[in-house]
């Protein structure tokens, strides 16, 4: 029982990070109908942005070895600023890799390749600049809180790392704010209008280019925040940090139903829980569980858990 509760809470924690990360894919997909393959790179870069903003120095391996900013922000502020920077970077990527193709009416498959290209260049650039070492954040997101909280009794302790609880809280907060924004604010409604019918949206006076920029900003912010949260929980495992996470994010949005916002949340939680319940003796096979689950869901429900069956419009 204790083990069950522990797995449940850990699963919810990592699942909520999967959810906010996957929402970055979902937002872009719902507007443009494309998968932004640079999203995994944004995850990595967000984590590095946060690292450098805390004033920590890079290691010995890259061009920037032993360099650091002349100031250091506390980790929480660095996380917010780092995620915002990831958002701006995402807007730049949209300009470079997506907009030119869209202007020429290129096939959507091409933006997939151009975003993959951006991702690979970005990852290699990181390796060139800061090397392939593992970085751990200076300071803790949990501040002076004890490093674990006991959810059980004294006899049967169920310790959960405080950082997991904080991550879960932050992710839930972001999900609530995002849901509110999309459903009730003017820009959120515009976003949904463009996602349903971009041509009609522009006939209503919505500047679709600006809305696409805003969407990429949000997407980048979510991706960067996810990277930062995972980085604060474990550490930044090098430039390829986000690649595996990027693939899992894809699994999450397919699980939940492509382009479906609640679906991305459900998909993230399902994946997080599935992983958490893999016995620790087999933890090396977590990814096999994740993608095996994806495989099974696709066989049973090709439209995803919450996805609607796509009706072809005539």
């Amino acid at each position: 029982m204790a083990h069950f509760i522990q797995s449940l809470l850990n699963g919810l924690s990592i699942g909520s990070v999967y959810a906010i990360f996957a929402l970055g894919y979902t937002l872009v997909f719902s507007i443009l109908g494309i998968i932004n393959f640079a999203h995994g790179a944004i995850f990595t870069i967000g984590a590095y942005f946060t690292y450098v903003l805390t004033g920590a120095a890079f290691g010995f391996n890259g061009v920037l070895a032993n360099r650091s900013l002349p100031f250091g922000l506390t980790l929480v502020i660095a996380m917010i600023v780092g995620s915002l920077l990831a958002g701006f970077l995402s807007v730049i990527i949209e300009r470079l890799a997506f907009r030119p193709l869209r202007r020429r009416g290129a096939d959507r498959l091409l933006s997939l390749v151009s975003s993959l290209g951006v991702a690979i260049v970005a990852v290699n650039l990181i390796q060139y600049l800061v090397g392939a070492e593992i970085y751990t954040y200076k300071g803790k997101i949990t501040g002076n809180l004890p490093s674990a909280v006991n959810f059980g009794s004294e006899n049967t302790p169920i310790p959960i790392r405080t950082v997991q609880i904080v991550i879960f809280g932050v992710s839930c907060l972001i999900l609530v704010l995002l849901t509110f924004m999309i459903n009730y604010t003017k820009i959120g409604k515009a976003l949904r209008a463009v996602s349903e019918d971009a041509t009609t949206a522009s006939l209503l006076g919505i500047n679709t280019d600006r809305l696409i920029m805003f969407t990429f900003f949000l997407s980048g912010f979510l991706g960067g925040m996810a990277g930062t949260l995972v980085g604060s929980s474990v550490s930044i495992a090098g430039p390829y940090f986000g690649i595996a996470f990027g693939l899992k994010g894809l699994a999450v949005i397919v699980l939940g139903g492509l382009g479906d916002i609640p679906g991305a949340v459900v998909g993230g939680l399902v994946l997080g829980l599935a992983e958490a319940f893999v016995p620790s003796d087999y933890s090396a096979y977590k990814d096999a569980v994740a993608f095996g689950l994806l495989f099974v869901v696709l066989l049973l429900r090709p439209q995803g858990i919450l996805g609607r069956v796509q009706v072809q419009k005539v």
Partner: protein
Amino acid sequence: MSAPDTASTPTTSPIRQQSGPDNAAHVLLDLRNVTVNYGGIQALREINLTVRAGEIVTLIGANGAGKSTTLRTISRLINARSGQIFYDGRDIGSVRPDEVVRRGIAQCPEGRRVLTRFSVLDNLEMGAYVRSDRAEIRADIERQFTLFPILGERRNQQAGTLSGGEQQMLAIARAVMSRPRLLLLDEPSLGLAPLIVRNIFAVIRELHEQGVTILLVEQNAHLALQYADRGYVLEAGHVTIEGAAAELADDERVRQAYLG
């Protein structure tokens, strides 16, 4: 590209000297030698078309003659290959589609295109996207509900669940919500029962009486010429006949081809 604001500069539309907007002779929309290539074919060839403030002008013609393409070009959804589009004396040939709406041209597109996952109320609210006068928007929504009582009854219903006629009413009401000076209507009668069509055209006339200038695309030439002041006949992307609506209705060529 953009012409200065002042009415007396030579860059303004030369068709007619600009006077006050309430003067019936004031040219609101002026297409000059507009050519559009679309999907590899020449969809419009050297179109010349004017709409004066206060008019209802109709564009009739067979399927694929270029009627919708003309409206899409005016709304800047597609680029003209050559030629100029003046609205209220200013060249709008290179502005963004949302800017066209901001300047006062609303389009009610073919096939209605309501936002199916939005409620009736939210659709109307989105129609006022370019405005920020909240209280006035509220009042305008209520006005739409007076004009189309059925929409008021269904204000909280998802637009996708409305009937075709109701969706058409919603699409028109939504276009009006931006408070346009010029309303582009694309096939408002398409696929609707005669009774509903009459209802919708009565509202179009009412909007016109409230001061909205209308450019109406219709396949139902008989109906369109009944309501319009002037008309243009499009054939294969070319204006072949133009004139007062009554004249067109009597024109032998028009009668044979479109009025049967």
